[in-house]
Structure formats: structure tokens, C-alpha cells
């Protein structure tokens, strides 16, 4: 059964909170739905990779995180927690999703 968006949000939020426990500079940072993951939260490539791998293992669905991260890097743009959850949830639901502003946006 496809998980609800709330379940996906809770999993990603919790995984990020766990990741932040290992960061020296994350003390006092509050993770909100609109928090921008790279510029505000301080997420880096390694954390993003851990997050993506964890989500795919947890829900058993392969998702194009590599493509997402490549697009974010090429466009030098950020993504909010809410947008990230939408990306994961849309793939769980079988939908397609692109980074907002991408030439490939649908």
C-alpha cells in the first residue's frame, strides 16, 4: 500500500533530524516544512545521498535522486523540505516530478 504524504514527510523529517545529530553546526536549527535544505539547514552532498538511499530502502522504490541532485547543482538552486517530500511522494504514487524552474518542468 502506498504510504500517505504525512508518513513520507514524517520519515524524511525524522531522517534529517537523525543526520543533524552528527553535525557540529546544527544545534538550534529548527527543521520546518519550508526550510531550505542546503542553504538553511546546511545539508551537503553526503547527507543528501544518505537521505536518498534511506528513503529508497525504507519504501522499496527506486527514485531518481541522482537526477534531482544533478539538476539542483546545475541550476545552483535549493529545495525546501516540503518540495523534497513532494518529490519522494510523487514517485511513490507513480507520478513524475521535476525541480521547479527546470527546463524539463512538467
Amino acid at each position: 500500500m502506498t504510504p500517505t504524504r504525512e508518513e513520507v514527510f514524517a520519515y524524511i523529517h525524522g531522517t534529517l533530524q537523525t543526520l543533524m545529530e552528527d553535525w557540529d553546526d546544527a544545534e538550534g536549527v529548527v527543521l520546518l516544512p519550508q526550510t531550505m535544505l542546503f542553504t538553511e539547514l546546511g545539508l551537503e552532498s553526503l547527507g543528501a545521498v544518505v537521505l536518498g538511499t534511506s528513503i529508497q530502502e525504507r519504501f522499496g522504490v527506486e527514485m531518481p535522486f541522482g537526477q534531482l541532485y544533478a539538476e539542483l547543482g546545475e541550476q545552483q538552486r535549493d529545495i525546501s523540505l516540503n518540495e523534497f517530500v513532494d518529490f519522494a511522494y510523487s514517485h511513490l504514487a507513480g507520478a513524475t516530478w521535476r525541480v521547479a524552474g527546470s527546463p524539463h518542468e512538467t
Partner: protein
Amino acid sequence: MPKILANGTTLHYLRSGRGPDLVMLHGFLGNQAVWHLQIVPQLRSRFAVTTYDLRGHGYSEVTPSGYTARDLAEDLRGLLDALDIEATPLIGHSYGADVCLYFSLLYPERVTRLVAIEPGLAALVHQRRDRDWNGWTYWVQKLESVGVSVPPDKSSDLDFLIKLSLETPKFYGPARGLPRNRGPLLHLIEKTTLISDYEYVGDLTLDAVETIETPTLLIYGEHSHFLGSYYFLKDALPNVKPVILPGGEHFGPLEQPDQLVHEVLAFLDSAGPEGAGTGAEEGFNRARSAPARSR
């Protein structure tokens, strides 16, 4: 985050995909993300891919010492033991490739095939101490391309250039353009033996390289500043398939992931389903015949 005790050190690792094992090692001052951005997504349908952060790097434990290629090869042995991987193909980039070569020397029975991408080889470090080494020019140009100027008297100062590089924005990945998190890397450089350990030769002498029988795919970029090591290794390794990536530089996993995957899959496929071929296939240098793309 999955972590495991290996050789007395806690290592952070990731496993994804299904199939025969494949273990990948990143380079100096990097982390395992280098594999995941473009390469693991193309391999995970074929292999059970294990990547990990070398000691002191990424989310692995930082120890005061223990960063020689031998130490890191022992970490790899510990990781394979802990994950119950008896023998596997290895892929290493840069210093990770040096570690793979050292591991193949120490534990040949545990490496079915080796993909060595841009190994520097500590025994050849004298080539890179020369002020005229083209790597210094490349490094300075890379810094100047992002607006960082290098005083002429510092243009071959390793310590200075490393620290200056940490002040540049990230070149790759989803956070490209954002500042680097300098703290952990500065700690690694200044508070551990990493820099001096990098030059440790140990048992991996130039003569010893000739005894590494593991079938090896040796990959360098056409414009790599480590080509001096390529020219040595392609002649010294007894069972090697040398490949030059046209237009490539040192960071093939990030710069040319698709070409890299193409070469890796062709190499591993030629070994059969378990990746344990003898290296007697077409293109190997065992008979010292020059492969089509070698130079």
C-alpha cells in the same frame, strides 16, 4: 546512519542494489557521495554496491593517525569481514585506488577484479614534488577560475593550496556554489597524520606493483595531472587493461560518470557473472600487447 566497526575504527557505509558484491572507495579529502550522485544509480540494478567513507572522512570516525594506504587497506579488510564479503571486485578513485592496490597486494584472494581510477601511488610522489609538475598549474588555474588568486611563491605549496581550496565554493553536487564546511576537513588536515601518511610507501614499492596479479582496469583522464603514474602502472601491472578517457581530468567519477560506467561494466561483464575472470580476455596487457585505447 549505518556504521560498522572495522579494524578498530567506526566506518560509515551504504549498501544499495541487488546482485553480486561491488565495493567502492573514494579519494583523498572526499567522501562516498562521489559515487552516489551519478554512478551508483547506474550500477545498483546489477550489483549489491557497498560504498563507505574512509577513516576520518565523511561520517566515519576521525582518528589521530592511521591514514596510510596500508592502514586504510586494513580498514577495508575489516569492513569486508564485518559485512561477510569474502571476495569482491573493487573500484577506487585517486587515494582510494591506491588503497585498493595495496589491498590487492596484501589480500589478492579477496579481490576478484580491480578498477583503479587515477591512483597516484606514493612510490611516485617524487614526480609530484617537482615545482614543474603540471598538477600545480592545474590546481592554481582551478582556483583562479573561481576568483581566488595564488601568490607565485605559493604555487607549489601543498599545505597552502589545500587550505586555500577549502575557501572556494563547492564545484560539484547538489550544493554546488555553496561554501564548503571547512571545519571537519581542516581538523583532518591539521590534527591528524593524513597528509604525511599519504606519502607512506610501505610494501607497495614500484617493484611490488609488478606482483599484483589482480585483473585491473586502469583509468585516467586524458588531461589528468597524474598521467606519470598511469605510464608507470600500465607497464608495471602484469594483468592490466589501460584506458584513457578522452577529454577527462582527475575527477572522472564526477566529470565523466557515464563514460566511466560504460568502461566499468564492459570490464566487469567480461569477467562473467561473478566478476571473477582471469584477465586473459581481449585488451589485457598480460602479453604486453597494446589495447586499442591505450597510449
